[in-house]
């Protein structure tokens, strides 16, 4: 079930109707109402997840049961050895499932190639029924997201940062909450699970915010992302693009992936707001970042903080000297690349960003302009430089063929005919016209302090109501008359 289809609209209305009916006794203090609401949301979440492929439910239920049990056992265990054992068991099961479904094909292909080069039988992994099943079954949607979300809870219980929960329904809902199940934001127990356990109070203000977020998300997806995707896909389907055409495609992809992922997040957050939940923010104008590190504090923030808390810091973080820091950064970004996809290009992309983040502070010491110097002009220069480097990364991200990546970097700008420059500018201009509200208008409003945060009392005035109505109308009109003829799945569904 996809957010931009009518099926999701009917589904959401049905969920809201049932949820709203239970809200009535919940608001009057009926003790059974909140658990009943959670049960209703859990049923809805499992329906959502198993809508197309029913057996995926086995995976999410397995992850839930294993992690719920592991956390209980960790909390009940007296000695550190037992606690560590249960944590290890949980992580092994979680990541085994993830690896089997996400990385088996990649692993088998590379092992097979290596064996073949040694003159050995190369099909021992794929020549059996289990191997064939894993090769043909495809990646279950959202598996990377719910695995990380569930694992973070067990680790937090192990670390004593959060309490072990006793309600299986509450925990199962935390793992499977449908608005953010397939592509995040990756929630933490202290945010989402705490809300699952507390009485929710869906408010009219929350409804307004939710509707605006949903419509804005639809605009980002259907108008901006899908339009940019058409342009980027054309370029990346070319056999021998010239330098300007290729980089125009990369810039269009930069628009596509931001709008696409931001759209999913906003629709997820909007849907959750209608139910009285507040999900974590995932983006903060990432293309205004002034350094690669800053970019990762603004892009897919919930994944970045996950890797920071559960990989980077345990590896040594940044307080054990420069070499440990560089090593930790590189390993973290290598794993982040691998998380995105089982392909060498994603690993390259991760390592590229890791190198940028690791090297940048050193460069900034030598070149203060890369840090804080230069005033507004310096800031603009840093934004442009970071934007450029991020888009070099997007080439690695989008192009799965490593040989084609090599060819792309060997293209000669001076060898392209003028007509190709003209067409390249045209393609980028088209993508950016669609993306103006996302890439220019919103950042400008935010910079001017004209975008009140959720909960700001100004939003409850009539003036802001009318402004929001105008925004809603703009999004709806845009979706109707500017929607891309060819729709596509959200990119992060593939991760």
């Amino acid at each position: 079930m996809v957010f931009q289809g009518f099926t999701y609209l009917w589904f959401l209305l049905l969920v809201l109707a049932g949820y709203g009916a239970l809200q009535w006794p919940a608001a009057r203090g009926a003790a059974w109402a909140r658990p009943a609401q959670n049960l209703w949301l859990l049923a809805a979440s499992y329906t959502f997840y198993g809508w197309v492929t029913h057996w995926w439910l086995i995976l999410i239920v397995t992850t839930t049961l294993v992690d719920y049990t592991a956390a209980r056992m960790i909390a009940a265990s007296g000695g550190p050895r037992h606690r560590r054992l249960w944590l290890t068991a949980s992580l092994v099961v979680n990541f085994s499932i993830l690896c089997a479904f996400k990385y088996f094909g990649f692993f088998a292909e590379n092992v097979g190639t290596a064996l073949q080069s040694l003159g050995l039988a190369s099909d021992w992994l794929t020549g059996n029924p289990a191997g064939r099943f894993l090769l043909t079954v495809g990646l279950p949607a959202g598996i990377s997201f719910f695995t990380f979300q569930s694992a973070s809870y067990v680790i937090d219980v192990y670390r004593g940062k959060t309490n072990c929960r006793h309600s299986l329904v509450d925990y199962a809902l935390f793992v499977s909450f449908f608005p953010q199940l397939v592509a995040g934001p990756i929630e933490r127990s202290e945010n989402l699970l705490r809300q699952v356990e507390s009485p929710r109070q869906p408010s009219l203000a929350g409804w307004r915010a939710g509707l605006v977020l949903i419509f804005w998300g639809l605009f980002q997806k259907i108008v901006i992302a899908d339009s940019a995707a058409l342009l980027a896909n054309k370029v990346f389907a070319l056999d021998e693009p010239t330098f300007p055409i290729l980089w125009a495609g990369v810039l269009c992809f930069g628009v596509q992936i931001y709008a696409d992922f931001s759209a999913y997040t906003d629709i997820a957050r909007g849907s959750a707001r209608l139910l009285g939940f507040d999900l974590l923010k995932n983006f903060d104008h990432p293309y205004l970042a002034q350094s690669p590190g800053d970019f990762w504090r603004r892009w897919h923030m919930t994944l970045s903080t996950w890797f920071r808390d559960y990989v980077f810091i345990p590896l040594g973080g940044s307080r054990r000297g420069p070499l440990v820091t560089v090593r930790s950064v590189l390993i973290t970004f290598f794993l982040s690349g691998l998380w995105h996809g089982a392909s060498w290009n994603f690993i390259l992309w991760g390592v590229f960003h890791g190198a940028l983040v690791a090297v940048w502070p050193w460069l900034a010491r030598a070149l203060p302009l890369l840090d804080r110097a230069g005033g507004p002009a310096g800031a603009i220069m840093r934004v442009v430089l970071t934007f450029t480097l991020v888009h070099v990364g997007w080439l690695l991200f989008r192009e799965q063929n490593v040989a084609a990546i090599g060819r792309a970097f060997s293209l000669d700008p001076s060898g392209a005919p003028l007509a190709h420059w003209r067409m390249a500018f045209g393609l980028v201009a088209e993508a950016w016209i669609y993306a103006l509200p996302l890439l220019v208008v919103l950042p400008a409003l935010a910079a001017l302090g004209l975008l009140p945060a959720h909960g700001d009392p100004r939003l409850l005035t009539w003036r802001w109501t009318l402004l929001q109505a105008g925004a809603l109308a703009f999004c709806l009109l845009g979706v109707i008359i500017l929607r891309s003829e060819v729709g596509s799945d959200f990119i992060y569904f593939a991760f």
Partner: protein
Amino acid sequence: MSTGPTLSVTRRRALAQLAALVGAGVGLPAAIGRWLPRPRAADEVTTELDFDPAAERRTLIKQPLGWLLIGNSMLNSRLYPPHLTKVSGWTTRKLGVGGTQSAIWWLFFKNILIASGARPPWVTVFFRESDLTWPDFRIRGNNAELIRRLKTTDEPEWDEVMAGRSPVASRASVAVERFFGVADHDDWARRRVQDGAFELTALEGVKRGARRLELNELFSLDRLRGDLGDDGGGAGAGDAAPAGGGDDSDMGLPDPGMYAQAPTVFDPSPAASFLPHFVALAARHDIRLHFHRVKRRPDNEGRRPELPVFRRYMDDLQEYLHSQGCAYSDESADPELTLAWYQDGDHLDKSRREAFAAKFWALVRDQVGPPPPGGGRKPLSEG
């Protein structure tokens, strides 16, 4: 509960604000949609909206014929029926509307020809690669208006093929478009954005049409890479890979929306396309079907090799058509159709239509055969 009245006022205001938000948010686009003028004829890039299905039916009733040709601008730029009549002896007529594709061709066949009662011995459909099994290609914009005019209240085949295929086809989507009254504006608005981008980047003052032709050439099918799977590869996996051809409307100008995913695997099932329905309906009415594949614009040497992605598809299509008793012809390997025959895109120069008629007849004569006395005209069916 001393704050009750205050809360009540606050709540009432919040409710009023929510109602205003939704009302204005939804009502404003609807008002704008009704206020916006319909796109002018110059903007109508796909179909000829003066096309009147009822008038076509009346013509078919009045003038029985032997051979009906169905297609789009590929047909229009190639054949002028009197030329074909002259060389073949068959009484011919065409239903060719620029920018149309298989969904509309099916409706031409079912709701104009069959509904008229005319039963010509032969019907030929002109197509390119996988047009015949791409039912949701070109059904929006002005074509949606044409479809609305062509469809009847009971279209089981349409429902079977389109069910769940395209959000455009869904009833809810159609209802939404009608409510907002802007169904005709989507192509128009997107073209405005494209033109705006062109204007912004108009280096050397190149004209818009010329730039579109440049783009058409840049993204032509023979420039596509061969290492992409059906999913298009890349992080956009699942996205439509632009394996599909360019625009066949009128000038062959590219539009981002035209680069949808063309099917590269032939699927003969009735839920996959209108082709099996075409075949079955023709058989029920004793009409022989003939499918003619046109040659895309060749290179300077007149060559247009088959694209690897379509090789298997074309073999399977031919095999299917032959198994169903349909005739098939293909001009794509004709070395005489050099670049000199072409005007723009895949369209032939209209001055070549008479010559093409002779060439076409020579190609299909063995399959279609000579006309019976009277040019093959058959009386109207009683059904």
